[in-house]
């Protein structure tokens, strides 16, 4: 039941993030929607890591290494969080440069690489 609640929350965040990505033309809001999608994925990952260890543990030989390896989902979540934070920092630096030199950050106005 708890797993179902968290997965519904995660899928709601995912679809709201897709809605924001498709609808808004502002770069900063697009980045925020991207962060929402990243967070929903990490949330689903942690919920699976917590509640479906039925599949990862073999019952006959339970060692300390096998017991610790159920936290691999947490490790993957930490890696995703750090990569997402680095990506956000880079993208916001680009937003600052664009806002200074083109004085617009609407995605429709940035068409230099078209044609």
């Amino acid at each position: 039941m708890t797993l179902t609640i968290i997965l519904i929350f995660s899928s709601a965040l995912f679809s709201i993030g897709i809605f924001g990505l498709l609808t808004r033309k502002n770069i900063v809001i697009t980045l925020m929607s991207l962060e929402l999608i990243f967070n929903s994925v990490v949330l689903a990952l942690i919920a699976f890591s917590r509640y479906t260890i039925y599949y990862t543990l073999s019952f006959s030989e339970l060692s300390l290494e096998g017991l610790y390896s159920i936290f691999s989902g947490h490790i993957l979540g930490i890696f995703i969080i750090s990569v997402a934070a680095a990506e956000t920092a880079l993208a916001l630096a680009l937003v600052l440069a664009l806002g200074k030199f083109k004085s617009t950050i609407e995605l429709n106005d940035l068409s230099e690489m078209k044609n």
Partner: protein
Amino acid sequence: MSSSFINIFLIVIASLGTICSLIVVMQSNVFRSAIALSFNFLCIAVVYFAINAEFLGTVQILVYVGAVSVLMAFSVLLVKDLQTGSTSIIGVNFFVSGFISLLTFFVLLFVIFTTDWQTVDKLNEPKIKAALFEEYSLNENKDIMIVSKETPAMEIHSGVYNNSIIPIGTLLTTKYFISLQLIGLIIVSCVVGSIAITKNTIENDDEMEELL
């Protein structure tokens, strides 16, 4: 804590987080949506704390609520005309993307409700339950044993979900050590890149204007 209490708590927190994320995508003022985004991150951190992932919750608060939201708010304040000059979002685009995202949501809901999840609550192995949630001890071959009255108090470990820092630290420094170093390298290169981009905006104004 009983399971039904956690479920009710999680439903409240999940509704709050969903409302906050809706504010993020519907609000025309960008600064307000940055604030709503930080509240959404906080709700997700609370969910992490509720499902025994304390370390992840702390990382979430430190990185997302502390750093990313503040970065967003600063970039909103530093760029001119960003706070109010946002285009209207109602149009054909609005309905098409709303339809697509609702379709995604219902497909995900269908998958969630039709799958028979083999969760840890259905587990009836006393050894695993003790190792996960209560107490366990190790014998000479490093095998997991159930704590009995003869076990000396020195060898009793508390269950991994009650003390999740030790497994995460062990995994990060042994099995995933190379990956940790690689992530550090990625972060350093990202920071160097963003410093290079913003340094150009301050020093070489004319050169960059010719480029753009």
